[in-house]
């Protein structure tokens, strides 16, 4: 396209009686530049409302949540004197009496301000059992008229136990890696290195592994079910293909919640699936499919099948049948032709479908919540639980952080290898 084609001169101002292009090249190109600048500005202004709204309704909430994972000023705010007194503590053994006195003053102060419970909760998140000790000490400090605070502090064994002071010292930094490490079942040890938490405290690694396992199982199942069907739809005449594709699209257009509800009906002890298994002789008694891993995987496979199938189908549709015929006529056996001619071409579609399903499975919440049992809850369910039940925002934020990193990394791979255009369904 040359520089002065009509499409470049598209501003009304230019079209309406400015000096005609060619009369004075300088003015014309200046007008063109101005017009282009105006054009850009106008298109930015058109997009601005939605971008602003998204930043407010989506961007800020996500950033705010993620910041909770690494920024927790509760302890630092509640213990200003202590954090000052700990300034010259080397982290070994117990700090000097000044730190105890400062802590007592901070505790009394937080009780007066009404923030003692918040502090106790924040310490408890990092040091299980700390909540009751803090609240007990606070009450004693309040009730003890005349008794020196130092004596009260020293009388509670918790404040001289190993681990207490390092945790406090750590907590007085508002920026913390504690929650992110916890989300991976890691912690700082006394020597400043990172170590695994003891097995009885480890929760999350297992949940992440479970999430990956369920996602992988569902991806594989959708591929096994979806690939042949996609191949069939791409091979049959147009009219039949249209009918078959409707069979894929109908469930695709039904909401995840409705399909999950359907599966809760189907998977009941006296539901259709159990009846079918008995009738076919695959099972000798009715199985507990609800609240089980296998029930969860079946339902998720049903929900994800179109997501895997459609990208594969959209690639298969573009492959001319003559290619396979050419391979046959050159002497290739059906399997060889399939493996060496067909498969390499549909591979991007297979990758797109599988990656998409895997990524979406990592974030599943509704289906595990309704169909999974206590040991089938995925990472999203833990995030929701930390917000709704435990009221531990920092832990929810740290788990979100890690889930988001995995999701975005996989999407980065997706966009890099396959391009964002493959995201479009149908």
């Amino acid at each position, binding site marked *: 396209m040359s520089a002065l084609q009509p499409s470049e001169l*598209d501003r009304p101002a230019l*079209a*309406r009686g400015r000096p005609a292009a060619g009369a004075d090249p300088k003015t014309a190109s200046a007008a063109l530049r101005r017009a*282009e600048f105006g*054009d*850009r500005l106008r*298109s*930015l202004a*058109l*997009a601005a409302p*939605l*971008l602003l*709204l998204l930043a*407010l*309704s*989506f961007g*800020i*909430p*996500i950033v*705010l949540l993620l910041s909770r994972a690494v920024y927790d000023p509760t302890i630092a705010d509640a213990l200003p004197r202590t954090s000052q007194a700990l300034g010259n503590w080397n982290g070994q053994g117990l700090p000097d009496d000044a730190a105890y006195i400062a802590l007592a003053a901070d505790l009394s102060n937080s009780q007066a301000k009404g923030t003692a419970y918040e502090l106790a909760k924040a310490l408890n998140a990092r040091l299980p059992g700390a909540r009751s000790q803090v609240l007990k000490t606070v009450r004693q400090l309040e009730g003890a008229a005349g008794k020196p605070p130092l004596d009260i502090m020293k009388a509670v064994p918790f404040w001289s136990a190993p681990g207490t002071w390092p945790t406090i010292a750590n907590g007085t930094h508002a920026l913390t890696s504690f929650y992110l490490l916890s989300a991976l079942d890691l912690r700082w040890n006394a020597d400043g290195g990172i170590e695994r938490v003891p097995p009885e405290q480890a929760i999350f690694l297992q949940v992440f592994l479970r999430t990956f396992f369920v996602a992988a199982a569902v991806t594989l199942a959708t591929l096994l079910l979806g690939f*042949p*069907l996609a*191949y*069939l739809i791409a*091979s049959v005449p147009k009219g039949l293909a249209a009918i*078959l594709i409707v069979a894929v*699209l*109908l*469930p695709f*257009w*039904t*909401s995840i*919640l*409705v399909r999950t*509800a*359907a*599966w809760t*009906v*189907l998977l*009941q002890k*006296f*539901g259709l699936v159990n009846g079918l298994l008995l009738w076919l002789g695959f099972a000798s008694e009715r199985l507990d499919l609800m609240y089980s891993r296998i029930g969860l995987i079946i339902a998720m496979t*049903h929900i994800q*099948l179109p997501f895997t199938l459609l990208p594969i189908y959209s690639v298969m549709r573009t492959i001319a049948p003559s290619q*396979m015929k050419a391979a*046959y006529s050159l002497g290739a056996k*059906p399997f060889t032709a399939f493996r060496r001619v067909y498969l390499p071409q549909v591979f991007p579609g297979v990758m797109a479908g599988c990656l998409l399903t895997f990524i979406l499975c*990592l*974030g599943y*919440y*509704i289906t595990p919540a309704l169909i999974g049992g206590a040991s089938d809850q995925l990472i*999203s369910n833990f*995030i*929701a639980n930390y*917000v709704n039940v435990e009221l531990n*925002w920092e832990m929810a934020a740290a788990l*979100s952080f890690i889930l*988001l990193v995995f*999701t975005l990394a996989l999407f980065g791979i997706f*966009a890099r290898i396959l391009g964002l255009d493959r995201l479009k369904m149908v």
Partner: protein
Amino acid sequence: MLLSPYPTPGERIRVALLWLWCGLVILFLLVPILIPVPLSFNSGAFFIFPLEGLSTRWYEVVLGTQRWQSAIGNSLIVAFGTTLIATTLGTLTAIALSNEKFPGRRIVMPLLLSPLIVPVVITAVGSYLFYARVGLASTYAGIILAHTALASPFVVVTVGASLTGFDRNLMRAAAISGAKPLTAFFRVMLPLILPGVLSGAAFAFVTSFDEVVVVQFLASAGQRTMPLEMFIGLREKLSPAITAAATLMMALSIVLLVVANLLARRSQGRRAASG
């Protein structure tokens, strides 16, 4: 072309097996979504076949009791609000992005799509945290805002697709003929991309109407939507009323999405015809 002109017996068996397997897969796809339909017309209170008798009593529960009525009302308020904002702003953004000169298109598009990529629980929890601070939690406005983030990518993509078939010279012709930009938009551009816009609106409506996770975190008891009422019902006690609600929701989303896809196809057909 499944069979070659002179199929060998082995080939016939393979194709027969493929059909058999695909038939089972199609049953697996369709039976679960169709199962709630007959159950919702069952007169008994259990989910056991054979059905006890035909009745509309569960639909009377869903359409007639106060709890479900208010849920349907809330769903409609939220979905219409979301559709209105997402369609308006999404269309403007799609028009802006269809301009080749738009600065940073390659950055903006992934950003616009990111609400679809981020796991929805993270979106819900983040919105809850932020909206509670600014007084938007437990308000219709808050739910609509959060839903707009989830719905607008569909509008941008659908309208964007219909704009690739739009000849920009038409806008220039309108301008030369003396039309102001707004007039040109409403009288030239909008009528031509209308199928795409309506299709995007239908996607936005369904996205909001079906959404349950964000609502779960943001809605107060008085703002429960239909999906949330279903979710709570599924957790508490499985009642056939849920199959009736599920059937209604399924019918609504399928009808809207069929319309949306037909419209989208129409606007793309126009593109094929024009280019």
